[in-house]
């Protein structure tokens, strides 16, 4: 045992602290202020060694790069290599987004983080009646492999890592296949590619659903197909990024965010093991995407707790041996939902605090939101300010000098334990209902998230949760100091491209390609194996999605 403090010393401290709290600490008369974290964990006035007296340093915290990885997944953390500056970008047609990528890389971004428009994310072509009004909104429009080629033209994809924010598996199965196929066409071998795709079935079935959804179990299957494919052919690619960030944005608490990503990762691991893969063949490439929200210390505790929980599950439940399987690596995006449309420049300070919590929590890469995000898609100026905020944090604050600087803080360690307890409770509950795929199919997760979102808004409405500019310090005549971003014309461009491509391509190749997809569904084969080939005949993303829906049917999620 490596208890932190001597038993007698703890008793002394406890006694003295009680006395301090009774005699010296005097809360203001009549004050009934509640002190708690954003997710409702009560917070005491002061934390002392007594709070962490039960802690076993070597087993509960350990050292960076060693079990249980609470203090960091790598031995040197930011002293060795700082976090990746991965700014999200994507809008309009591929031609326009390609320019933004080049701009961000020139300004010092060290990775690409590509986001796709609503039609692409939901498996529709830009010209689909469902999609036309949304082409180019919220991300870049991808209809065929040609768009993918244009998107990365002139960008060294064998050297730079690319994150493809292919949230929904139905999007990922086509879009990731297009990325891989276009790499092959550029003569870049698949084993040279580094990057991440999101590919999270909860995104498709719970968080940002679409019309004509795939049923949860099939969405989950597509997600596992991509992981299996990458494990075999694209070994340096992270084939999934469990999107806790988005769960949080739609209303989850900190513990729900961690519980749902880990339950999802557990389900994927079980499925891949059932398919005959060794846990250590795929687990090192499972990656996580978490939010950095307003409660500074709770967020830091959340990242640390998540690492400890994942370590135990991988080691004890799945018997993983490769240290890389045991490490929970994560990208952070600062919470968009915490930004305000009111007095938007205030968002620069908000996001900087969010990012600091991510860094003190040991994130592997960080995206900082643009200050105009509650108003429009970020402009060049707001994207640049966000990138600079990240660089200031990295280069000026010296927050990176030592590893896990808050480790050992009586408060942060206690909070880490509390977030862990609540997360484990939720994980048990999900296990009890047969796992995350069932919890999605029955609508349980939908309800959990709606309830949390409701409580959050109620706290703002009642003034219990102050938000500057929203329910306090409002200003009457606000001048809008930001230039708004206008989405470039997309639909017409995509329409022309699709028309030309449909004329040029070989009809019988297209039919064969789509037949192969349908056959693979019937035979329950790995769809990515087939689709990576299909996209080369320039079948559209919509055609592939329609084929999948034809085979698997569609599903209506619960409304509330």
């Amino acid at each position, binding site marked *: 045992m490596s208890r932190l403090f001597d038993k007698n010393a703890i008793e002394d401290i406890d006694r003295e602290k009680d006395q301090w709290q009774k005699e010296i600490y005097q809360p203001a008369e009549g004050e009934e202020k509640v002190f708690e974290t954003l997710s409702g964990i009560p917070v005491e006035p002061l934390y002392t060694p007594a709070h962490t007296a039960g802690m076993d340093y070597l087993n509960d915290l350990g050292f960076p790069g060693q079990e249980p990885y609470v203090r960091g997944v790598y031995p040197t953390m930011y002293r060795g290599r700082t976090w990746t500056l991965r700014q999200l970008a994507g809008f309009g047609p591929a031609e326009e987004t390609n320019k933004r990528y080049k701009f961000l890389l020139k300004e010092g971004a060290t990775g690409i983080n590509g986001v796709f428009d609503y039609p692409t994310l*939901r498996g529709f072509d830009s010209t689909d009646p469902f999609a036309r009004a949304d082409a180019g909104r919220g991300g870049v429009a991808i209809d065929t492999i040609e768009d993918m080629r244009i998107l990365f033209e002139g960008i060294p994809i064998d050297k730079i890592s690319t994150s493809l924010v292919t949230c929904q598996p139905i999007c990922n199965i086509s879009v990731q296949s297009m990325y891989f196929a276009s790499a092959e066409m550029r003569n870049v071998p698949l084993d040279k590619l580094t990057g991440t795709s999101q590919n999270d079935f909860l995104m498709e079935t719970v968080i940002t659903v679409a019309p004509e959804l795939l049923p949860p179990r099939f969405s989950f299957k597509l997600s596992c197909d991509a992981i299996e494919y990458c494990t075999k052919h694209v070994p340096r690619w992270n084939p999934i990024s469990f999107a806790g960030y988005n769960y949080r944005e739609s209303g989850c608490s900190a513990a729900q965010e961690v519980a749902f990503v880990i339950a999802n990762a557990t389900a994927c691991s079980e499925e891949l093991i059932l398919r005959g893969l060794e846990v250590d063949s795929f687990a090192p490439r499972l990656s996580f995407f978490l939010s950095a929200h307003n409660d500074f210390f709770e967020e830091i505790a959340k990242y640390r707790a998540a690492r400890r929980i994942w370590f135990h599950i991988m080691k004890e439940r799945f018997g993983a041996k490769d240290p890389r399987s045991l490490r929970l690596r994560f990208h952070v995006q600062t919470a968009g939902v915490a930004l305000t449309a009111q007095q938007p420049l205030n968002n620069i300070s908000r996001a900087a605090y969010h990012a600091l919590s991510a860094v003190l929590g040991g994130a592997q890469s960080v995206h900082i939101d643009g200050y105009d995000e*509650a108003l429009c898609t970020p402009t060049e100026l707001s994207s640049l300010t966000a990138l600079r905020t990240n660089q200031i944090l990295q280069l000026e604050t010296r927050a990176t000098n030592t590893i896990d600087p808050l480790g050992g803080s009586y408060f942060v360690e206690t909070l880490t334990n509390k977030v862990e307890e609540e997360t484990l409770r939720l994980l048990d509950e999900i296990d009890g209902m047969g796992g995350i795929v069932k919890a999605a199919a029955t609508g349980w997760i939908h309800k959990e998230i709606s309830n949390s979102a409701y409580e959050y808004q109620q706290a703002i409405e009642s003034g219990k949760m102050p938000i500057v500019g929203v329910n306090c310090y409002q200003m009457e005549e606000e001048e809008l100091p930001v230039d708004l971003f206008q989405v470039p014309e997309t639909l017409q461009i995509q329409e022309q491209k699709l028309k030309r491509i449909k004329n040029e391509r070989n009809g019988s190749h297209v039919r064969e390609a789509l037949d192969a997809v349908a056959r693979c569904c019937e035979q329950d084969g790995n769809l990515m194996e087939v689709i990576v080939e299909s996209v080369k005949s320039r079948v559209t993303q919509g055609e592939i999605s329609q084929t999948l829906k034809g085979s698997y049917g569609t599903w209506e999620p619960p409304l509330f």
Partner: protein
Amino acid sequence: MATKKKIKVLVTKVGLDGHDRGAKVVSSLLKEAGMEVIYLGMFQRPEGIVKAAIDEDVDVIGLSYLSGEHLIFTPKIVEEMKKNSVDDVLLLAGGTFPAEDIPTMEEMGIDKVFRAGSLTASIVDYIKTNVEE
């Protein structure tokens, strides 16, 4: 006169945007304020929204927008309302909009725009004041 009837509000989203947190939360809070809320869900089309509004005889239609689609869909919904002579229904919009778009939306026919961060109390007040008993 008959006993006071509950104010009926239809809340929905158009287009492919799947961010429904706001629409759901506002629906719950309007219910709590004593209104009857019909939540149609996302991905609705203008024709469907107006049909539901007529079928359900609502007093208010609340549209939730997030990703810049408001200038495209608002005229379509207003046109559909005109076509069906729906002229006694308040049309509200909530969500993420640039300030400069608000006058445009009002010209298009939105009675009142509530930007992200508006408190529900202000929405409730507005509805109660403007729905004719």
